């Protein structure tokens, strides 16, 4: 054997196979069967996929998911950059803001969900109480507007710090000379940000956007703990939709949903990556 390096990769490949590839192939396999727990599997070909693409509940979950993830990016990315830009650049202030920003990131998803459930609980939570002062009757358990908005605000609270931390690290890595040159060239604050800071943060922001997109696309714990997917289906995001299908023991159909879900995440993430890694790079080569 010429290339001995492969030998050393075998343990990793075996682990990946056991952990990821084999379970995934099992799911692919399931998706071609009419499979209820306890019954004999019946091969149905693409029937599950066919049903799925005609399922109005799937359409609305997918649509809701896309709106949610796009809103997450639209709000969290600029907000995170703005927070990073306003952070102190040296001294004790840096440590304090890093700790404060890092704090939400340390809390597990379901704990965040429970905290927000307590915040928003009718009668005892602070959110309905405060909003009532302003004459707004807030009810996360009843209102199909309040519920998704609550999940969204909760996600912004939980994950904007990640973007802020990434952006801060990216900004700190820009040498002073670039800002000095911009000063000499008479660039305004906005132009300095637009032509010095932002292009230099491209890589860091690409990572941030990808992470936030993939993560928000897979959101599960927060809606599960805060609203349980309701009221109605107003917070039934894709992940919850899949879980519901599996809970109802329609495993073949749940398998098909999982595969489609995975493909969507992969394709969209790939597109994002392609677009973002091109922005600002070859602009002048047209």
């Amino acid at each position: 054997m010429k290339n001995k390096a492969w030998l050393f990769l075998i343990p990793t490949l075996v682990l990946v196979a056991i952990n990821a590839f084999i379970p995934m192939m099992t799911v692919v396999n399931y998706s071609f069967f009419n499979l209820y727990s306890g019954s004999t599997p019946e091969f149905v070909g693409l029937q599950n996929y066919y049903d799925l693409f005609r399922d109005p509940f799937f359409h609305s979950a997918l649509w809701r998911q896309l709106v949610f993830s796009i809103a997450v990016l639209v709000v969290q990315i600029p907000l995170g950059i703005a927070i990073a830009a306003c952070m102190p650049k040296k001294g004790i202030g840096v440590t304090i803001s890093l700790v404060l920003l890092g704090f939400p990131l340390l809390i597990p998803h379901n704990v965040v969900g429970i905290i927000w459930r307590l915040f928003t609980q009718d009668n005892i939570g602070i959110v309905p109480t405060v909003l009532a002062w302003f004459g707004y009757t807030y009810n996360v358990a009843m209102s199909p507007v309040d519920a998704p908005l609550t999940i969204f605000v909760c996600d912004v609270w939980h994950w904007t710090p990640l973007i802020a931390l990434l952006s801060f690290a990216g900004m700190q890595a820009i040498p002073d000379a670039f800002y000095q040159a911009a000063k000499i060239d008479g660039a305004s604050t906005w132009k300095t940000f637009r032509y010095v800071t932002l292009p230099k943060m491209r890589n860091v922001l690409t990572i941030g956007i990808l992470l936030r997109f993939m993560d928000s696309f897979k959101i599960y714990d927060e809606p599960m703990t805060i609203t349980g997917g309701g009221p109605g289906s107003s917070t039934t995001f894709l992940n919850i939709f899949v879980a519901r299908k599996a809970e109802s023991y329609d495993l073949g159909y749940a398998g098909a949903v999982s595969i489609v879900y995975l493909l969507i995440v992969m394709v969209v993430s790939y597109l994002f990556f392609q677009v973002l890694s091109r922005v600002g790079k070859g602009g002048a080569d047209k």
Partner: protein
Amino acid sequence: MWHSYEAGKKKGWFKPKEECPDDSYCVTDLNIKWENGSANALLGPSGCGKTTLLNVISGLLKPTRGKVLFDGKDVTALSPEERHIAQVFQFPVTYESMDVFQNLSFPLKNDGWAAAKIDARVKEIIALLDMGEIAHRSMAKLTPADKQKVSLGRGLVRPNTAAVLLDEPLTVIDPKQQWDLRRRLRQVQRQLKLTMIYVTHDQHEALTFADNITVMSLGQISQTGTPEELHSNPANPFIGFFIGSPGMNLLDCALRGDELDFGGFTIPAAQNIKVKVAGCGGSCKLGIRPESVEVAFTPKKDWPEFTLLTVENMGAYKVLTLESGSRRIKSRIPENAAVTEGAKLWVRFPEEQVKIFKDDVRIDG
């Protein structure tokens, strides 16, 4: 028209808050003038305050005390832009989301020029720096040397640029292109009669680029002069050692009767040297350039004997390290001279080439 930069006269001239927590100053008491249209170098070892001084001149740093004058007008409170100063940094600083043309037009756009005027001016600069082929290339595809040209061009593009400050601009550029870029810089300087201040720690760069060199050491100015002056008339031992390759031999000596005693060997003292050494208490530091040390391969009267320790062949010449007792000196001889390590040699210090220093100050000539 001529203008000058004058910088403060008080002790403790510049003190950055963060970098010097104690009472030390990065640049102290100095007064320096640069004339309009001249090519100048600011030379000194790393950490001597060159970059600090440069940033004070450009306005990126505010001096703790003192003034920067421009044509006699106090500009200390003005921003770099208002001073019309261009700066080229150690590594290429360009706007990477723009191409060469856009980079060059950026300062003019910020100044609110009309598009047609910008176009004409940028084309002039592109022609001047010979960048026609790469005018619409993006920054990611340029070599460091070309990027450095772009940052120079951004400095030149404003027609009212008063001075171009270059902070070790060739550090990240490979040697062959360094030579090319330095020549181009010199050419642009002459053509546009620009005032350039070139900061470097490389004496070779300074000597080949500038008409006027200011040598700094430990936050102070050691000497200002033409390359020839610095080489043949160093004001202190630091300049003697810093300029020249190898640096000047500096030897402590004491006057004993008619001889200078170097603590390992002695040489007869000429009358004028004797007077000067006696005048400063009988002991001093004697400096002689390696190329001035005369070497003989046979014993001569009054020439002390040395042992040849090492020979470094530099191609065009050889550098010999000679030892007598614990004293070592260097000598530079023609490349074709046959010498073997360990041999005995006899040397002479021609009196007209000898410099005498006392307490780091030149006392002869």
